[in-house]
Structure formats: structure tokens, C-alpha cells
């Protein structure tokens, strides 16, 4: 099966929603696809127990109710060939052709190994937030939130809203760094308001700076964590640990298509021009995949790409000014939530680094590159295809599994057997 659209948007978070709305608004026939059952991405993820914020509902409805937008839920891209994408949904596989392709593939959480991090009960910070929103039982559970960045506050607020007892938020950045971050927030009044609202919702929850989770303990389930902070080491009994060290751009699809990438710290982001065009003329990239920037960047970049892709470039300068302001916030954030080097050294020789294949750090010693690591240990060869350990090892400054090849996700045999890409 094959279908062709003027504009194909991959990823239905704020960036993809804005792109789809802008392109459809110019008369284009648009398809918007996402691997999740609902639109909204991670930041606007559907919450089974609570209504979404007004702006999320407005953006989602604008796209889903638009007559020229085809919404494809639970649809994952597994391969690309000759200007088409091979997509799989629960029922079928099909080729999607496009005049322009807009990548709004978002970000993944940066999850770094430490002793005990594979225990059930330990999740990412965004991970636990996503689980809570999916209806994971939280009532009365004791939760510790740790890692780095403003996402910790959002996670703690979601956990509390779902009835969890949040025992504390442990930010690795120093008090001085967090204070400087807060002191500079006046340039982004909406962000300052958002921070104030979160603090109100988290009244009574302790926010500890310079504090790092160094170990999790338990047999088959998390029982206790060990923290190292300004007042030394302490153990805290808890049911869940939500720990994440920020976000990493998800560039896999751009990489598969051959778009030029550039470093963002130890990771990569897609290179785009001021119109969000990648190094491939009809492929655009927007939002987190172009560098971690948050929802405001995502919305404005999506709109820029949706307009450029349909030739509507009249209002671009105003949008580009908004984009620069939003990107400056991202830089402000990066500058003040720099990772403490000790976090990259928490894994011990027997700590599993590749969680899929149970590969301990020790097994990787002496291996020169990601390929040797794969061949010798299977590191990065499990079902996550190196998504977790690859980012972790890159952040730790060690050889990471690389060399991406299709399928982009584990796919059904029937999908792989789908006939060749059509000649449109």
C-alpha cells in the first residue's frame, strides 16, 4: 500500500502539531504520524486522570479536526527509500510518499548508569511522569525525583497530582547555579510564571541542590536509594526513583535519511538553516531534534517549517525573532544545568551499561570503538538498538554503539517484506 502527501510530518508533539497546522493552513495535504496512541508528544502527553492544559487541547484539536490533515496514530517509521518512508501501524505496513518531510522526532531522556539502575521501581524522570499519566498506580507511593533540569519539577508535580508522596527532589546542579538560572528567568516571563506555578504545586517538597543518586538497592524491586549531597551520604527508603539527566535530541530518522548532523555536547543534533531546512532540500527538522530547546522553540520552529514547506514565507521574520528568543532560553538552561563530572563516573565495573544485553561496564574496557563493543559483548544490539546505552556511553566519553541501519525500530517480518518503495 502507498499514499502520497504534500507534507509528511513525523512526530505529533508541539513541533509536529505546529508544523502540520501551518502546512494545512496553506492548503497542503498533510499526514501527521506518531508512534504513540495519542497526539501531544511527551510534553503534552495525555493524562488518564486529568485534563490537558488549554493550549495543548487547542493545538491537538486544530490538527485532528482539520479536513486536510490525516492523523496516523501508533505509526512508526522503520525505513526510508527513494523519497518514501516505510511505516508500520498495528494492522499494516505502508509506504508514505511526500513532497516535503518535516521531522519532529523530539528527544529522549539522558539516562546514565549507576549501581542498581536496572531494578524495577527505577525509571527515568520523564519516564515516571509518562507512566503516571498512563495510569500507573501512584497513590500513597513514596517517590524520589532526581537528576537535572526543570523536568524534575514537572515530574514531581505530576506524581503528587496522582497521589504519590514525593519525598524530595534532588538536583545535581549546585545551589549557586540554580539561583543564577532563576535570576535570569525575567527575560522569559512565561517561563518564570510556569516555574512559580510548579513551586506552588510542590509546596512542602524539599528541593535539594548538589545532590546525586549514587546507588539503588533492592532484590527484585527498589527498596532504598543512596544519595550523595552537601551533607554527605544518606539512604532513603522509597517505592519509586525517577531519575533523568536531561534530554538528548532524537536524530535517528534524520541520520537514516542522510541529513547533516552536528555535535550538541556529547550527542548530535540536526543542522538546519533559518527556515528549518536540513542539508536535504525537502527535509525539514523542528524542535528538540535540532537541539534541546523546549516547547516554545518547538512550536515556533514547527510553524516556520510548515510555512516554508508550502512556500508561505511572508511572515517568517517575526517567527524567526520568536525562535531566537526561545532558543536563548535553551542556552540559558544548558549553561546553568551543566552535569557534575562525578555523574559520568557512577557506574562501577559490574554495573550493567547495556540493559538489553546485560553488558557490564567491565566488559567494555579496552574496546576501541562501538563496533568492537558490539562484536565482543553485544552492547547496543538488544531491542532498544543502543538508544539507552548509546547515549549513556557517549555522555560518559566512551566508545558508543553507532552505525545506524534499518529497520529503525524492531518491525514485523510482514513489514519488511512489503514491496519496494513505489516510483511516485
Amino acid at each position, binding site marked *: 500500500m502507498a499514499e502520497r502527501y504534500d507534507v509528511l510530518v513525523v512526530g505529533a508533539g508541539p513541533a509536529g502539531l505546529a508544523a502540520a497546522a501551518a502546512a494545512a493552513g496553506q492548503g497542503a495535504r498533510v499526514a501527521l504520524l506518531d508512534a*504513540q496512541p495519542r497526539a501531544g508528544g511527551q510534553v503534552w502527553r495525555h493524562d488518564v486522570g486529568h485534563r490537558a492544559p488549554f493550549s495543548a487541547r487547542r493545538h491537538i484539536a486544530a490538527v485532528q479536526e482539520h479536513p486536510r490533515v490525516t492523523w496516523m496514530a501508533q505509526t512508526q517509521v522503520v525505513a526510508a527509500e527513494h523519497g518514501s518512508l516505510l511505516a508500520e501501524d498495528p494492522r499494516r505496513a505502508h509506504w508514505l510518499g511526500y513532497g516535503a518531510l518535516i521531522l519532529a522526532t523530539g528527544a529522549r531522556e539522558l539516562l546514565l548508569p549507576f549501581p542498581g539502575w536496572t531494578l524495577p521501581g527505577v*525509571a527515568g524522570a520523564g519516564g515516571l511522569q509518562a507512566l503516571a499519566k498512563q*495510569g*500507573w498506580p501512584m497513590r500513597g507511593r513514596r517517590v524520589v525525583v532526581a537528576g537535572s533540569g526543570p523536568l524534575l519539577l514537572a515530574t514531581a508535580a505530576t506524581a503528587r497530582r496522582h497521589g504519590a508522596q514525593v519525598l524530595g527532589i534532588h538536583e545535581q546542579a549546585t545551589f549557586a547555579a540554580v539561583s543564577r538560572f532563576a535570576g535570569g528567568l525575567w527575560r522569559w516571563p512565561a517561563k518564570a510564571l510556569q516555574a512559580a506555578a510548579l513551586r506552588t504545586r510542590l509546596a512542602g517538597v524539599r528541593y535539594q541542590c548538589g545532590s546525586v543518586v549514587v546507588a539503588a538497592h533492592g532484590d527484585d524491586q527498589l527498596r532504598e536509594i543512596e544519595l550523595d549531597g552537601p551533607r554527605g551520604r544518606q539512604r532513603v527508603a522509597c517505592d519509586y526513583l525517577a531519575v533523568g539527566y536531561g534530554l538528548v535530541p532524537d536524530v535517528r530518522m534524520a541520520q537514516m535519511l542522510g541529513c547533516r548532523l552536528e555535535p550538541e555536547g556529547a550527542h548530535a543534533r540536526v543542522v538546519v538553516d533559518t527556515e528549518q531546512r536540513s542539508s536535504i532540500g525537502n527535509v525539514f527538522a523542528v524542535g528538540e531534534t535540532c537541539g534541546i530547546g523546549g516547547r516554545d522553540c518547538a512550536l515556533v520552529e514547527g510553524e516556520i517549517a510548515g510555512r516554508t514547506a508550502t512556500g508561505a514565507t511572508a511572515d517568517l521574520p517575526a517567527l524567526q525573532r520568536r525562535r531566537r528568543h526561545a532558543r536563548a532560553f535553551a542556552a540559558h538552561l544548558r549553561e546553568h544545568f551543566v552535569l557534575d563530572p562525578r555523574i559520568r563516573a557512577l557506574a562501577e565495573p559490574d554495573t550493567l551499561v547495556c540493559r538489553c544485553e*546485560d553488558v557490564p561496564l567491565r566488559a567494555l574496557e579496552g574496546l576501541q570503538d562501538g563496533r568492537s563493543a558490539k562484536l565482543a559483548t553485544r552492547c547496543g544490539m538488544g531491542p532498544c538498538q543502543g538508544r539507552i546505552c548509546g547515549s549513556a556511553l557517549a555522555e560518559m566519553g566512551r566508545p558508543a554503539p553507532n552505525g545506524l541501519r534499518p529497520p529503525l525500530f524492531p518491525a514485523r517480518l510482514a513489514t519488511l517484506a512489503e514491496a519496494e518503495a513505489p516510483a511516485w
Partner: protein
Amino acid sequence: MSARMHITLNGNVVEVPEGVSVAAAIAHAGQAFGRSPGGRRRGPFCGMGVCFECRVSIDDIAQQRSCMVTVREGMRVDTDG
């Protein structure tokens, strides 16, 4: 989230909240998730379809990420599948 529905989890019919993910339903039923190749117990980690640690069999289709599927009445879920 007050309405309930029924799924067959590891061969037993259990009542779970409507609208939740299969991962959440398994947690509501107090069941464990799978094990790693080395036999270590695991559970959902990333919550968003990246880590693949919450894989289960749903209606006889193996290797599905339970955090990305919403429960349906009568669904059959096996955590060791």
C-alpha cells in the same frame, strides 16, 4: 479512571481501570514484568517506548511495548511472553 474493565493477564481474569496503558494495568494487578537475558527482574524504565523493557505479549503478538498500548476489554496479556 473510575470505570473498570477486564483483561486476561497471565491466564487469570483481572479487573483494571479503563483507559490506562497495558503497563499500568499490569502494575494495578500487582504482576511483575519480564526478565533480562541474565535473568534479572525488570520493569518499565523510559515510559515512552524507547527502552523496550516493558515488552509483553498482547493477544498472542509477542514483543509489544506495554507502555504504548491502551488496555481494551477482553485483551489477553502475558508478561513472560
